């Protein structure tokens, strides 16, 4: 899953897609995940980092990851 390369993101969760003109706001966790994905970090590493730093179960993280990908697809932010 790769984020489109031209997507602009800010540290506080603002996202802009120059191709469509759409803008989004995300929470802190979304900003963090998006930044990691944009930097090319593999899915496994992102999840590992989150599990180390945050109080969340593996099951919850897996569910939220799936939902996150659906959100990105719906927002048209993923490479085809």
């Amino acid at each position: 899953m790769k984020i489109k390369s031209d997507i602009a993101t800010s540290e506080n969760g603002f996202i802009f897609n120059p191709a469509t003109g759409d803008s989004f706001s995300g929470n802190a966790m979304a900003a963090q995940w998006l930044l990691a994905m944009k930097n090319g970090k593999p899915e496994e590493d992102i999840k590992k980092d989150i599990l180390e730093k945050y109080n969340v179960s593996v099951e919850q993280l897996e569910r939220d990851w799936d939902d996150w990908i659906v959100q990105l697809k719906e927002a048209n932010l993923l490479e085809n």
Partner: protein
Amino acid sequence: MEKLTYEKPYIKKLHAGVMNKFGTRTGIQPVKQIDGVSVKKLIEGYGSPVFVLSEKQIRKNYRSAYRAFSTRYPKVQFAWSYKTNYLNAVCQIFHQEGSWAEVVSGSEYQKALGNGVPGNKIIFNGPGKSKEELKIAVDNNSLIHIDHFEELNQLLTLSKELVNKPRVAIRVNMDTGVYPSWDRFGFNYENNEAWTALEKIVTSGKLQLVGLHCHIGTYMLSTAAYGIAANTLCDLAMRCNTLLNHKIEYLDMGGGFPSTNTLKGAYLPGADTVPTVDDFAEIITSTLLNFGFAQEDLPLLILESGRVLIDDAGYLLGTVIANKRLNNGKRATIMDFGVNILFTSFWYEHQISPAQDFNPHNENMIIYGPLCMNIDVIRESINLPLLNTGDHVVVHKVGAYNMTQWMQFITLRPAVVLIDEQQRTHLIRTNETLHYTEEPEVMPAHLRPSK
């Protein structure tokens, strides 16, 4: 090292455009307790979903409504509308407060007797009374509200074989200026049917005509309609007095006052738009007081309010089963309660609150029940914080009609708990079991499973 608090990642598309003139919605608060009792503990103790009723709120509603009328008019009587919620514990609260019983079927009538209501304080309404039910009502000296000429003729016939002279009122329908006009209950005023019925009763000499009744609608948003209805009943009562030389003892204005729930499609929340009980009391009592009755001849005013007295005293507690996304990306949350136990979700946009702390991000979502039926939608669109599987929610203002119109369909009906004024919880209806639902079934011998 202590781990940081996690929250589900969430992005929301920003839309440029004009600001909502009502401002952004703020202030979704977690509802962790009801009358001081923890939601979590209620679910742990009684299961999920579970209906919870607040005795304190019921009594408060009753006293406030009674005060609204009794401070304006000298003779006021409430009769608890059994069909709104006929759990016996609920009925007893209203009877303790001084309510009579208003019933609309033989089974409700028996319930009222079982609750210790004296026969002469039971109002027997409704279009479907059997001969046997009428006999019992007459024997108990109850107030029978006649719905149609068939019933009137049946009572005239019955009166020949019964000791008691039936105490009756007629139900009157009329044009109160609201749409839809309810003309299905009782005798019509404008075409003189009501007057014909009154003449027939009085001239027969076999029935005691004691009152006049109307039931002009439900969830009425117009107080003026009650003014017209009260005026109509007053006119009939006055004509009975002058033309038939017969004094009417009471006028029964029925029910229909709205609760503060928000109707589907309403532009503003119910709490901001519905008239208060005081508004209805003002127009009804001022019509009666100004009509021209002598002070000593003022009829007793009876109210059969249901919804307004109990809706906001009822809560439904439930649990999130799952979250999913629909094909348009919209979030859908599946709860463990469906429309089979929350019938009012067909016409109300029920407020739903999370029962635990949550992250500040809201998302627009659809709330489904657990039924495998397309119609099982609790809220088509609601902004709520992100809920996780196992989280609890509180649905507000569900006290009216749900605990009578609910049905055993796919899932069984849950328990009902009453929180008393001392914050003690009481199970007032246990949750259904498969055994309970199968008990009335009879299996033909040739279909019994082979062992």
